[in-house]
């Protein structure tokens, strides 16, 4: 079993909120993603069992949404917005800076499995650009100094 009791209880609680069970699929995927860090077939099967829908319906929905990584990622998933508002304020150079700091290329994970770096589509933080999301948190109005500090803090935290 991958999902812990807390996640399962939270998913069950969601099911009760909708006239049809199937509506709980996305919230369930989100709960699972936040616990596990990525999604896979095993997770879909467990969710399907809790929500009482066929496995394929969970997998079908999950594979549509790129917000959920389908492969394991580092402990900290760094998602840099590279759309127009962020790009105008240097999102491309932010990605290069992170590549250099972490010694990986976009799409890769550091050897210690701590950081994965990806670019994503607009995160709705356009007036506080450039920005990145790390796991569930937004980091906005980024500067080199801020990025250095954030990475250092996460490294210390491990």
């Amino acid at each position, binding site marked *: 079993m991958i999902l812990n009791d807390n996640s399962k209880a939270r998913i069950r609680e969601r099911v009760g*909120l*909708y*006239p*049809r*069970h*199937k*509506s*709980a*699929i*996305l*919230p369930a*995927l*989100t709960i699972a993603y936040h616990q596990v860090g990525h999604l896979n077939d095993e997770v879909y099967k467990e969710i399907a069992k809790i929500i009482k*829908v066929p496995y394929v*319906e969970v997998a*079908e*929905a999950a594979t*549509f*949404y*790129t*917000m*959920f990584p389908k492969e394991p990622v580092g402990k900290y998933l760094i998602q840099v917005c*590279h*759309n*127009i*508002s962020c*790009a*105008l*304020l*240097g*999102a*491309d*150079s*932010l990605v290069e*800076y992170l590549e250099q700091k972490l010694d990986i290329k976009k799409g890769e994970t550091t050897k210690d499995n701590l950081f994965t770096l990806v670019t994503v*589509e*607009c*995160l*709705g*933080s*356009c*007036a*506080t*650009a*450039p920005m990145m*999301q790390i796991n*569930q*948190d*937004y980091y*906005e*109005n*980024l*500067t*080199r100094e801020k990025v250095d500090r954030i990475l250092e803090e996460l490294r210390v935290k491990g």
Partner: protein
Amino acid sequence: MFYSPVRTNAAEVAQSEKLHLFRFVEDPEQVKIDIYETHGGYKAWKKALTSMKPAEIIDEIKKSGLRGRGGAGFPAGMKWSFIPKDSPKPRYLICNADESEPGTCKDRVLMERDPHAVIEGMAIAAFAIGCHRMFIYIRGEFNHSIDRMQAAVKEAYEKGHLGKNVYGSGYDLDMVVHSGGGAYICGEETALLNSLEGERGMSRIRPPFPAIEGLYACPTIVNNVETLASVPHVINHGADWYKTLGTEKSPGSKIFSLSGHVKQPGNYEVELGFNLKKLIYDPAYGGGIRGDKKVKGVIPGGSSTPFLTADMLDVSLDYESLAEAGSMLGSGAVIVFHEDTCIVWVILKLIHFYRHESCGKCTPCREGTGWLEQIIRRIEQGKGKPGDVELIEDVCGNILGRTICPLGDAAVMPIQSAIKNWRDEWQYHIDNKKCLVKTGFEFK
């Protein structure tokens, strides 16, 4: 402390007799229900539920001229009136908080800093259409907005603004905070319905329109966060008051998300009809262009709206004036770029987004956005071929108006506009295999 450090003009709004959406967004206590109530919160909901008939509420909203703030600008009251009066099925109200059009970051502020205003607007709308279970669909990355809304909903239940027999009226109203999957397409209302039903977020063919057959094939109204947050003010002060704001055909106030090469990006609530040049240059808002460079172009209403060129900035920000200028008010996301910006590079950024966000249902959009990205990328990389501009125009022509939902149109309109306004620059890029202006923006 606020979760998002985004700049707002709340101080100006607090001084104003008329602006209202941002009055308390710089008050960290506003998220608490007691403070919201002290500031006059939930009065409109109580008034609507205990002293107005649903038809009266719909009439008031119709009379106010409030139009959808999510992008399409459809009159909100008219939308509500499409709910069939005799349907035995349950009715649903959904607040669309899948904010993801590049440039748009206003709904997030409302949810994070004034969540009860969203709940109150939703409750009034729900009662007006006879809905007993309403949903807010929040994009999945907005974890903080989701938490804030969930906490606010819990408080609203505890204080009796939601739940069974609200204010002793006999009316039951439940609210569910739903976390979405972060897909842009789910901001399109029929894709949102599919997504909320646990399906892949693909658009549905209309008709039937959601007001007739929406969520679970029941009558459903989908409204944007800002639209609904405006509703309590209309109910409190009346449609006539609301119409004293803005222009005759575009009444009210609107939040503009100002981003890009301005000195002070931020979210600014102004009356509709506000001057774009003032928004960009006034020290109270954008404060001018970084490095005091010249404006090259502006996207006035989110990434799907056609460009305005530097000579067109003296325009009113309202639905009619922007349409006259050949663009759209859209979601009110004003993206500004200066003279050192390559237009091919801008378009590459945009088309990459649309290709990624196309749901894949309609062939012209699914295939066309992919081809467009390939062609535009090769031009941007200095590998453009003679005839590429015409090829882009041809592909655009085969997407526009040929898809179920507006995503295809949204992908095409800025491209067509960029070619129309800067055709020489596209040709220069192809002929000389490089940018006419050097783009390369460093972050600080």
